[in-house]
């Protein structure tokens, strides 16, 4: 459980890709996502996955992205099985399942390399309403807190004799109720405290709040943008019309 919890916690890593402007990272992620959508054969899937793993390697997140893809493997297997059942050839079903992994991998690149603070700046750049942006940032900020709360409640209930590993899937789900209820109550109380703290720090005082950080693409950002477009556009053309 602790291992899963760790997967949700963002870690600051110093890598050339991490240091890029979040809009450039988003562009690269969208490009890889588009490429993953366009693949239709095994060589194309291999090219798309290579691109994803190359960026993950530069970003030093190879292990973390592998963990994300391991979770996703379960759904990929389901997709593969359904495609086989509905009569797709084995290779096509395999390509569709792996394409799903590539799609997840391409989006993970952005979320694993962009801290929520930068994500907030990007959302603001897209002129999303302040309240929505703040709700999103707060939700992401409290994921590790709630995960740790869940683990603590789990340990407390286990020490009182609750057995989570026994029984079939339904009884196991029922056994999670004593964990979910205190967790929800705790989250509700926490939201009250958060609201008070927000008010006490002048949330909503002005219509357009300013920001400590400002987005700046920089030279390397421009180079990365040009390089990614130069590589991805011909590849997309190749996937669509030639391969």
């Amino acid at each position, binding site marked *: 459980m602790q291992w899963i919890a760790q997967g949700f916690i963002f870690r600051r890593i110093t890598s050339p890709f991490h240091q890029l402007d979040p809009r450039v990272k988003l562009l690269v992620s969208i490009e890889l996502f588009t490429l993953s959508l366009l693949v239709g054969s095994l060589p194309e899937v291999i090219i798309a996955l290579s691109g994803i793993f190359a960026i993950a390697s530069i970003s030093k997140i190879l292990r973390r992205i592998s963990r994300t893809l391991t979770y996703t493997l379960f759904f990929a297997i389901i997709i593969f099985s359904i495609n086989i059942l509905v009569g797709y050839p084995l290779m096509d079903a395999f390509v569709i399942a792996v394409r799903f992994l590539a799609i997840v991998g391409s989006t993970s690149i952005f979320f694993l390399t962009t801290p929520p603070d930068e994500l907030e700046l990007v959302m603001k750049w897209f002129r999303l309403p302040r309240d929505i942006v703040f709700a999103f940032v707060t939700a992401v*900020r409290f994921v590790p*807190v709630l995960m740790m709360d869940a683990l603590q409640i789990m340990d407390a209930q286990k020490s009182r004799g609750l057995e989570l590993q026994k029984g079939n899937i339904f009884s196991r789900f029922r056994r999670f109720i004593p964990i979910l209820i205190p967790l929800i109550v705790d989250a509700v109380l926490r939201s009250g405290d958060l609201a*008070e703290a927000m008010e006490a720090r002048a949330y909503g005082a002005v219509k357009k709040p300013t920001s400590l950080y*400002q987005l700046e693409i920089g030279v390397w950002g421009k180079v990365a943008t040009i390089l990614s477009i130069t590589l991805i556009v011909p590849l997309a053309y190749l996937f669509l019309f030639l391969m």
Partner: protein
Amino acid sequence: MECEYISTLHIERGMVPEERKSNNGLIISFEDRTYSYLNCKEPAIQNINLAISPGEIILIAGPSGCGKSTLLRSINGLIPHMYPGNSSGKVSIDGSSVDETSITEIAKKVGFVFQNPENQIFMFSVERDVAFGLENLGLYHEKIREQVDWAIQLLNIEKLVNRAPHELSDGQKQKVALAGVLAMKPRILILDEPTSLLDPFTALELVEIIKKINQNLGVTILIVEHRLDLLINAATRIICMSKGKILFDGEPRKVLTEKKLPRIGIGIPTITRLHRILNEEKPVFGKIPLSADELATNLKLILK
């Protein structure tokens, strides 16, 4: 220099300098304030009359449920703006009625550090969180940078600026929460049980910071604290509450002579208790000591 900067800042924000106000130099005043939460028959605070001058450090003590938090929330406007209920009387901050001023406007003057620091750190990096209040006020980027750096330096948390909240200890979180509030340069600082999650060493460190803020910046500080030992030496005044009322209000030495304190659930400091026991045996001790040093001086005098 810093105090001058603060007063300039408040004038910039449109606040009237103290001497021009008709509040008799008081920064906080309660006039017969009674408040009860919605659907509650019993008032949380009753007939509170309080006058607080700038620069005081006030320790608020009392058993759980005695109205301490309600009193504090009445100062920063969470009551009645966020918790509408039945209220009478008046609370004024710097001459302005809390009931008629918005919370965001009060937030410019009153900084509030809540009990659990985890629930008041919103952003994903320390630096960004310290800037949160200033961003909300719509200050220019350069001004935010200046005030954030100032608060970070004041709290000595330069090494933490890029850390995420989940990478901080409770003591570090408390410092970050305090920095976030101080960056807004409030004239009043309210701390609700700031040491409740801290180990004794970190708690002492926090007390030293609080003293520094009061002495160097002239900020009026109100602290709710159960561990009187920690803050008794720093406080200029103690307010003891019970069942929504102020029972004792005065200088620490005067309030600590009250024999009713343990009966209403206020744990008196060990040094004071020792002084009482010794005084019962041989009533020759001088003033009530507020620190171990003072007690030692008293004892030396007796032994001579």
